[in-house]
């Protein structure tokens, strides 16, 4: 249709001459319409949301390109702001051989969650939240994960770690029917930033419905004498670790109309959550992000930090960065890593972070760090 339109308009001038007065009158209409169209167009260049009051500073950066309204965190049962540093360390006991036994309780359940203001998604969850609990253990511990399936379908927990085939969470090895219970048991290794997810089939559906979470194993400083200080800073509970601001970010997305394409992208489920409520960062304290990508359907995701650079530890299994001084990393599904950076030399302000697939950004995967001076 557009071709014919241009074809018709191209012929306009020649026909005008041929057809004399009749065409001239018609041409006047065309010209008048065209002129009006142009002036209208230039007029709307400054189209801006006609809001009565000025939007907050952190929203001004996005103009009108953002979701409308607020997600009810109380109804969801989880708050994206709290998910960032909400570690599940389980319960600790001593085994007869003196090793630490760490036990986690996980329950699968169906739950409708609000993934963007007003958009409800029939999720399958671990412990009623998406992403599932961020499990954290220390290298060498014995882990026991008591998994109960209260959902409507068969589910499992497949850990990215080192374990026996019987504990793999695939059909025949820990994939359990609704109402059943299974105990996964293995050693916490290797240290790093890992993840777990449901491995029931069809895999795509079980992952994008919300069955995934972070699984972080801290290095044991006594086993890493050559990098003891670094290892101690990674180990939750040490004074060195308390000097860091640690966040877990799961890059996820939701296919709300089940056409195998995502409608909503985010970190930690809720679109634009950290745009509307920026993450407060103390300028003098270094930042460590445990970043995991679980986005389904799209082959790749990424993390880009504005106005700053970071060191990256791919999969977190090393104590020396695998990439130094970058401001963008890409991850395929289930790829993950640790980002370390600081704002010591920056002036306070709002620093954006987002996927550098503009499409993901514009569909919700974007946030802000609100860098502030240390409060005394």
């Amino acid at each position, binding site marked *: *249709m*557009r071709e*014919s*339109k*241009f074809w*018709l*308009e191209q*012929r*306009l001038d020649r*026909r*005008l001459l041929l*057809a004399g007065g*009749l*065409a001239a*009158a*018609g*041409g*006047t*209409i*065309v010209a*008048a*319409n065209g002129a*009006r*169209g*142009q002036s*209208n*167009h230039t*007029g*709307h*260049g400054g*189209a*801006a*949301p*006609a809001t009565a009051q000025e939007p907050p500073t952190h929203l001004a950066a996005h103009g*009108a*390109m*953002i*979701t*409308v309204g607020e997600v009810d965190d109380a109804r969801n049962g989880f708050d994206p702001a709290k998910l960032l540093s909400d570690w599940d360390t389980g319960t600790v006991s001593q085994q007869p051989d003196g090793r630490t036994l760490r036990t986690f309780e996980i329950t699968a359940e169906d739950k409708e969650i609000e993934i*963007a*203001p*007003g*958009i*409800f*998604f029939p999720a399958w969850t671990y412990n009623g939240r998406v992403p599932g609990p961020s499990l954290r253990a220390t290298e060498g511990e014995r882990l026991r994960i008591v998994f109960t399936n209260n959902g409507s379908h068969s589910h499992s927990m497949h850990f990215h770690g080192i374990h026996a085939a019987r504990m793999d969470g695939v059909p025949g090895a820990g994939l359990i029917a609704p109402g059943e219970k299974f105990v996964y048991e293995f050693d916490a290794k290797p240290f790093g930033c890992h993840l777990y997810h449901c491995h029931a089939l069809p895999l795509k559906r079980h992952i994008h419905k919300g069955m995934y979470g972070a699984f972080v194993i801290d290095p044991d400083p006594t086993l890493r004498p050559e990098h003891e200080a670094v290892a101690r800073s990674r180990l939750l509970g040490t004074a060195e670790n308390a000097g860091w601001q640690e966040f877990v970010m799961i890059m996820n997305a*939701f296919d*709300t*109309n089940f*056409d195998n394409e995502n*409608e909503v992208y985010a970190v930690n489920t809720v*679109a*634009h959550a950290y745009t509307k409520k920026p993450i407060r960062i103390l300028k003098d304290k270094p930042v460590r992000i445990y970043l995991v990508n679980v986005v389904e359907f799209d082959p790749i995701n990424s993390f880009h930090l504005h106005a700053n650079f970071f060191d990256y530890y791919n999969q977190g299994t090393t104590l020396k960065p695998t990439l130094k001084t970058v401001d963008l990393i890409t991850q395929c599904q289930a790829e993950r890593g640790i980002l370390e950076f600081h704002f010591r030399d920056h002036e306070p302000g709002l620093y954006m972070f987002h996927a550098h697939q503009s*499409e993901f950004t*514009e*569909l*919700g995967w974007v946030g802000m760090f609100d860098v502030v001076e240390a409060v005394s």
Partner: protein
Amino acid sequence: MTELAHSSSAEPPRNPRWLNLLWFAVPLAVLGLAIAWLVSSDPLSGFRNGAPPVENLTFERTILGPEGIQILVRAGGSEPMTIAQVQVDDAYWQFKQEPAGAIARGDTAWISLAYPWVLGEAHAIRIITNTGMTFDHAIDVAVPTPTRATMSLTSQAILGAFVGILPVAIGLMFYSALRGGGRTGMDFLLSLTVGLLAFLLVDALAEALELSAQAAALFQGQTMVVLAAVASFLLLMAAGRRSGTPTGLALATFIALGIGLHNLGEGLAIGAAFASGAAGLGTFLVLGFTLHNITEGIGIAAPILKQRPPLWTFAALALLAGGPAVVGLWIGSLAYAPQWSALALAVGAGAILQVIVEVVVMQRRRQVDGTRTLLAPAAMAGLVAGVGFMYVTAMLVKI
């Protein structure tokens, strides 16, 4: 049988008025009870299978202006629908809904987006409801929508005159030239009229059905088109035959009316197409429409060749047949919804069918041998010429 008739006529059983009212009240009371039972005790709960409510959203109008994009949507879900978010070109944008809140079945709402659209380029709107369902609407070519403030009614009227009134007037001007033709010439002309009317009938029905498919499901577009066409056909047949079979000026008037109703629908569609940027308005296109519609004037002139009507009747006939194009353009570019264009075209199709019937009846009466009405060589030639001319000239304007 006869006895029964006899007894009933002798002593008609006349119920008292209150009893008649009671017989009205009983079925209504049963209906009321059924509804009350359905609502209160929910006997159909077994059919509820956990499926979410059916959702349907139709995009009826799109307005592009200095403020951004405005779209009119009509809800057609089994329950009121809630619009949660709106994407433009795969990005979430702030929007305002008027009226706010859930949209009841059959109701409409305006969605306003402060989106910096780009002249001449395409944009995609996607509405996401609270259940995560999506409804897509494509803006094929973004051009500013004429508004009451920006649109000059005069220029629209000039355009309407070019595509509607002028060609009919030109066709009517052949009147004197056509009077010279003999009996064969008359056969040819009347069949030419039937041919062009047949083309318009097919064209109007096809277009009405196509437009009705874009309308919200609750309008039952295809049924509406067929019923409207049949109704207008029957109404006009009845009106036309009140004082015998229409001939002469009366028949010419009916032909003009049928063509006028068709032009109203055409005008609506053209106005909407230009307003939405679906068609660029070139002089070539305007000339195509003019040429296409000249035959309509000849068709109107055919039944009155043997009379000498006063000059003003020609002007009136031209206005009746062509004027609605102007009105259609005005309405179509300002307030357009596919169901109204479909309705206008369907009514036009019914009117055209009526005049086809009447012209054929007239031809039959003129023939000594009625069976040869449309089969005489001159008549066949006229039929082919009418359809052929319309088809070929339509190639200039179909986009």
